[in-house]
């Protein structure tokens, strides 16, 4: 082992020290009162309003983390390479493909999944059921998250805007014509709610 690797690293500022005593003296002096920084690979993220602190490997995708490790079954793996939209989650208000995002880069992010959208009582869920927007249902949560992100930034989208927004979501059963109907209906419900306030 080389001499270099034997040095002691400050967890706050990464300054190197020759001895542990020197590091201790530095840390107590320079960083007294600061919160202990997260260990490498530890991230904090908020999923559906709840905070998590979780250790991740650098190669984990966000999909692997939230589906396989955290147990949110809604972001589904369909194409495996950013071509189908089934694994879409909402990250800080934007729809993102969880299979194309590295978990380790999501520290501090706010994530919404279809489970969270349903639990919040969003009218999209009921209008999706009413309009048969699912057949086998495997891709459906990806449509729901994409649609929710659309409504968040555009509360009254036109049919063309909806088709544009859903252009990256594949549905092999071909439920496509129903989604604009359901999204328009949910938009109407949301604006009724707004009006009632």
């Amino acid at each position: 082992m080389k001499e270099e690797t034997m040095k002691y690293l400050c967890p706050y500022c990464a300054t190197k020290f020759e001895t542990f005593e020197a590091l201790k003296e530095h840390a107590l002096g320079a960083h007294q009162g600061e919160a202990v920084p997260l260990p490498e690979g530890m991230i904090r993220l908020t999923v559906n309003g709840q905070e998590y602190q979780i250790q991740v490997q650098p190669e984990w995708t966000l999909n692997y983390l939230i589906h396989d490790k955290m147990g949110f079954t809604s972001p589904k793996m369909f194409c495996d390479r950013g071509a189908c939209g089934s694994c879409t989650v909402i990250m800080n208000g934007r729809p993102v493909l969880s299979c194309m995002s590295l978990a380790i880069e999501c520290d501090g992010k706010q994530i919404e999944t279809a489970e969270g959208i349903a639990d919040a009582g969003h009218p999209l869920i009921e209008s999706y059921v009413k309009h048969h927007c699912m057949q086998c249902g495997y891709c459906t949560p990806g449509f729901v998250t994409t649609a929710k992100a659309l409504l968040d930034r555009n509360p009254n989208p036109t049919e063309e805007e909806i088709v544009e927004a859903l252009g990256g979501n594949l549905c092999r059963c071909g439920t496509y014509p129903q989604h604009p109907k359901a999204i328009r209906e949910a938009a109407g419900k949301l604006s009724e709610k707004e009006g009632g306030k």
Partner: protein
Amino acid sequence: MSMVRDEYEKMVEMQDNTGADKYPLKDFNNIGKEQIRRFDGIEKASGRAIYTMDIQLPGMLHMKFLACPYPNAKIKRMDTSRAESLPGVRAILRYDDPALPEVIDLGGHGPTAIRAIPAVARFEGEPVGAAVAADTEEIAEEALKLIDVDWEQRPFVLNVEDALKPDAPRAHPESVPGSNLEVEHVEGHGDVKKGFAAADRVVEFTAKRLLHTYVSPERPCGVVRWNGEYPEFWCKHQRPHEAKRTIHSWFGKTPMNKIVMNFPYQGATFGGWTQFYWKQGPDYCAALLAKRTGRPVKFAFSRRDDFYGGSMDEGNYYFKVGFKNDGTITAVHAEGHFANAQWEGFGPGTHFEDNTAIPSLHAPRKVVRVNKGPTTAVRCEQLPNTLAFTLVFDRVAAELGMDPIDIALKNDGSKGHDIEWLNERKRELGFNPRDSLKECLQKGKKAADWDKKWHPPGAKRLPNGRMHGIAFTWTHQWDDSCGTSEIAMRVERDDGTISILGQRCDNGVNADTAYCQIAADEIGMRLEDVFYNQHRDVPFYPMCPDSSTNMSVNGWAVRHCARLLKAKMLEAATSLRAVTQRGSFPPFFPDCKPEDLDIKDSVIYLKKDPSKKLAVADLVGVSAEAGPLGFHELYGATRHPFSVPFFAYSHQSQLCCYGWPFRPKWSRQTHFMEIEVDTETGEILVTKVVNVNDVGKAISPETCAGQQYGGTYMGAGRALFEEVVHDPVTGVMLNGNLLDYKIATIGDCGPISTHLVETRQGYGPYGIVGIGEDIATVIPAMLSPAVYNAIGVWIYEFPITPDRILKALGKI
């Protein structure tokens, strides 16, 4: 027991049904109603529906297969020692493992006898040689790279015309040794020589369909655990009954009652994966490795792996058609040479047989082996038939300059007989004859605005510069109403709700809700009081659920069962209720006969005095220690009235619908497609599609519409761009992913106008006929006449991509 016996006798009478429904309900409450909430909706929309891919068990290992890098190769020697020593590898199953039987049943459409892990690969990517189980998928993949294989590479052939040449390399030398021609069949009737002689004109042409596939959103996968003695499976498979039967044949015949099967929701495979002869190969290997390692084992194929397997219409087609100047077709020669088709192929003549008065038909087919993945029924095996049917009918119309609708009407019939003859047969079988084609045309022509929009070929340039095309096609409705479906129902104590019992797979056709609609209406229950948890191993098995056979058989089983259950309940309501040594309860409806009663909104009532009533929940009483004896003597608790348990089971068993005289098809479907063709770029836009389907009777109209627009999207994608491409030099598949293999997106089809016709001329209960397979199968070929109508040139190579348009226009 007279009422129960009466229902039982009616059930027996409707077994192997070849005629009209003799005892339909008079009044429907939920059946046929719109806005019935689908039972799987919330689960699927919220992402909480569990699929096999979502299953994770504690300590679960991940299994991966070695894939052959060559299209035709044999393992000479294999060294797995480096892979075995990789940390995290728990077991490797080799092709020469002494525990592997020489051959084994690995499922498919019926029993198979093949090797679980072969040493010979017939296509690039075929799983051969070894399966590795490791702590993670990544370790399993790493281990596969460490396996040293000495391959004997053999020459290969990729398409039917090359494979049929006398000096062609043998694609499957072990199973089809003599030549690549596996089998030849001929179907047809009449004398085509006479038919062509009687024709005013004869045309000949050829067509080609390139390989396409099913693209299941959920990849092939499965999970197995051993409880120490017996296996438990989580299966992605369309036929629970068949999967369990296959598993039963393994490991020295594992008893049926000790195998536990779980069928979570399924990402739809449209036939595909379930039909392949090797379907349960990975289930078997995973089970063996789970047994050896004592840990659950999951396998999940990659997205690329899912592309190794396609639709059985790939191949070359040859047509010769004779017709009179008035549009009467006198003879059809329709020939197909299919690549790797299973079950000795299908078509391409069947729809001329089933559907027309054409007096002579000669339809030979050849099934040819090539070094690509297996092909099977992929929504569905009728693709060669619908392609042949559409191309022939539209070509005749074009040759004569006649409206294709007139050609359809002129030749509608069956088995060479006209529609009048067909109507006689309908009457004989108890149907009220209706002209299904005319009824479908009436709706379709109007919705498509056909009379205004149809024009001579190449005659209409739109203001945007593109050429406008419109096409029409038609055929009959089909469902494969065969098999045995078994269903049971139980009235739950405490609340009197009804559970339907029967394990099926769900591929999304909303069948669970539809079965409940039937049961609710037949018994008189509120819809919310009937439920079907289809994933449980109960073990009753409805037929081929969501494959070719669904409602036309399972609907019968549900109906029989509901009627038997209702009869039992009404008889119990008029008899002494459950008798014990400590006494019994008097009948609720004393001095009544079961016939005096009926059930509505989950309440039993006296027909002549509906104020006398008893909720089903009160008839069955409460369960267990809160029941009729319970603690009442000890604690002075109330004694609850109580009845015998209510349970009924039933079945429907039917022969296959293919082949006269069983269930000839008299329901029709018509479709219209409008397109725009850019003659500079070759781009085609499908701007409008009209679907009209005679479903006999719709149980759930929205679900039927879902099959129409859903099938239209799939059909449009198949017609426009779906093609699996192989490198001719290496035999390697080039586009096994969803970036390079395109399926239709929301923007790839214009408005779809769906219409239902209900002539009650199907063989299912209430006269229903299935449509799930039909639309995706009929739509693709219609692009060819639409393109002809737009640019005046026939393109008979599918998919019709922009380069094929430009080539046909002489621009490249």
